[in-house]
């Protein structure tokens, strides 16, 4: 019976690494953005929120194409990375991470924003009257109260990055162990008419995605029941 070869396994390993790095970065970057969006009364809230949500509606190829142009040697990101001595980002793992961060941003920011908004102003005021400064309040009150939001954000960000295809296709260059992730590998198998291998990987993705969502929904149900 045919199963996964070493190239497939490398693609799986790379995908998990990409999703992990992206999720960690997104939680770090997304938290302040979500916090700002949840708390601000600035007029920029609408535009910034819309920009963050763009990947929800844009075809990944659009995002991928713009990233390819922007991160290319003549694009503004490319100019910047070159002047910093970093070269250009397309065809690199770092480039995939940058693209994935943009692409999965709304899946992390929105659950966090919802969680922060649900906390409301009161617990923050209470904490302030109990001598907790803003950072202290964030770590001792906001974080614990928005834990379900962080779990949701982490799972969705991870899963969405695993499922990413169009953007990677546009800027990845399909380099084994650097940019060839599972979804691209599945595409290649299909294109090459290697349907059996395609089934193995595609089936694995299906099961993975289902398990992730199952975990998410069961934990949500539990949470709702408890609260």
């Amino acid at each position: 019976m045919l199963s996964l070869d070493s190239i497939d396994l490398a693609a799986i390993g790379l995908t998990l690494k990409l999703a992990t790095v992206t999720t960690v970065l997104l939680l770090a970057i997304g938290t302040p953005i979500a916090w700002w969006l949840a708390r601000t009364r600035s007029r920029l809230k609408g535009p910034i929120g819309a920009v963050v949500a763009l990947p929800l509606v844009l075809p990944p190829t659009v995002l991928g194409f713009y990233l390819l142009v922007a991160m290319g040697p003549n694009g503004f990101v490319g100019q910047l990375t070159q002047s910093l001595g970093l070269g250009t980002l397309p065809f690199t793992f770092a480039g995939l991470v940058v693209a994935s961060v943009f692409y999965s941003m709304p899946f992390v920011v929105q659950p966090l924003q919802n969680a922060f908004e649900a906390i409301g102003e009161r617990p923050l005021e209470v904490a302030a009257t109990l001598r907790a400064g803003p950072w202290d309040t964030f770590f001792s009150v906001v974080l614990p109260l928005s834990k379900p939001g962080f779990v949701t954000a982490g799972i969705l960000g991870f899963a969405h990055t695993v499922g990413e295809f169009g953007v990677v296709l546009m800027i990845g260059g399909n380099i084994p162990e650097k940019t060839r992730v599972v979804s691209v590998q599945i595409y290649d198998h299909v294109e090459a008419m290697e349907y059996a291998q395609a089934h193995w990987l595609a089936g694995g993705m299906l099961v993975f995605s289902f398990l992730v969502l199952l975990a998410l929904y069961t934990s949500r149900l539990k949470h709702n029941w408890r609260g």
Partner: protein
Amino acid sequence: MIGEAEILVAMSECAGEERLVATEGRVGIHARFRVGYPGFALDVDLRLPGRGVTALFGHSGSGKTTCLRCVAGLESADMGVLEVNGELWQDSARGVFVPTHRRSLGYVFQEASLFPHLSVRRNLEFGMKRVAAATRRVAWDQAVDLLGIESLLDRMPERLSGGERQRVGIARALLTSPRLLLMDEPLAALDLKRKHEILPYLERLHDELEIPVLYVSHSPDEVARLADHVVLLDQGRVVAQGGLVATLARLDLPTAFTEDAGVVVESVIAEHDEHYHLSRLDFPGGNVLVARRPEAIGHRLRFRVHARDVSLAESRNENSSITNLLPAVVCEVVTADTPAHVLVRLDAGGTPLIARITRRSCDQLGIVAGRQMWAQIKAVALLG
């Protein structure tokens, strides 16, 4: 509107016992705030005693809570000056704004707002452990005993009743050893039974701790029972501020024209009459007999005398069933809420009284300022 200076003069004429606490030196609280929102403006200048309970009293929408939030630094005022017992917390002219978490205050919200993810014990510790050990003046046991929450310590907030939550909220605020305790209608969200469950704790707080309290309330009963000092707010402005007894006895304030018009008297239990099952309460200028109280002799007790329960006579009428008779001098007479009635303010040897009588009786008896009368008190409402 009558200015403050004028009011003080009016009071000193008759009521000799004005208890306005002088802000001698730097002791006391000075708060000036101006806040403007569409449709609402707050403009207050408060000089409050540095000890005891000060009630911020007024209808909803009068700006009480906004005022309290300004003191806490939770509301950003357009103009603000705040000095608490010699410490400057805010001065917009000089760019001083101490953020809330650096102000040594405790805040009790209308709903207890306990942190749902922490047990009662951890809630209590939250503020306490953020205060340097050297500056802790309220001990753990003291706060826990005072509010009777020993048995609740290991519970989660969701397993507490409303009254229990509020007691924990108060203890939590106290454990930060605040220099000022702010309470925003802490009883408003509770039903009558819970209110009566908590009031004694608040009284003990008042009696046992030396922390000045700013207490927002719209309930005359709560104010009469707990406050030493009253600030009356209406539409964002201070209508009156002063000692509880003197302020409630004023006839120029809207409070005088409600059903509840009356005075508060601070008394001491002087004697129990076991035969008739009565207790005698002494106060400056006289005494009253009430149904036997459980408290010991020497216990301080407040009672309210409603204006509608006071009638006036030219002479001491020994042939009446009314036992409580007090000699009193008429200070002023004003028209009451109906044209048929007048309100008469009297001074019974230092204790103010208000009587609500018909204009006809007033004319027939020839009641005018300066006249000596007998006040017949039909009922007193004991507080506590």
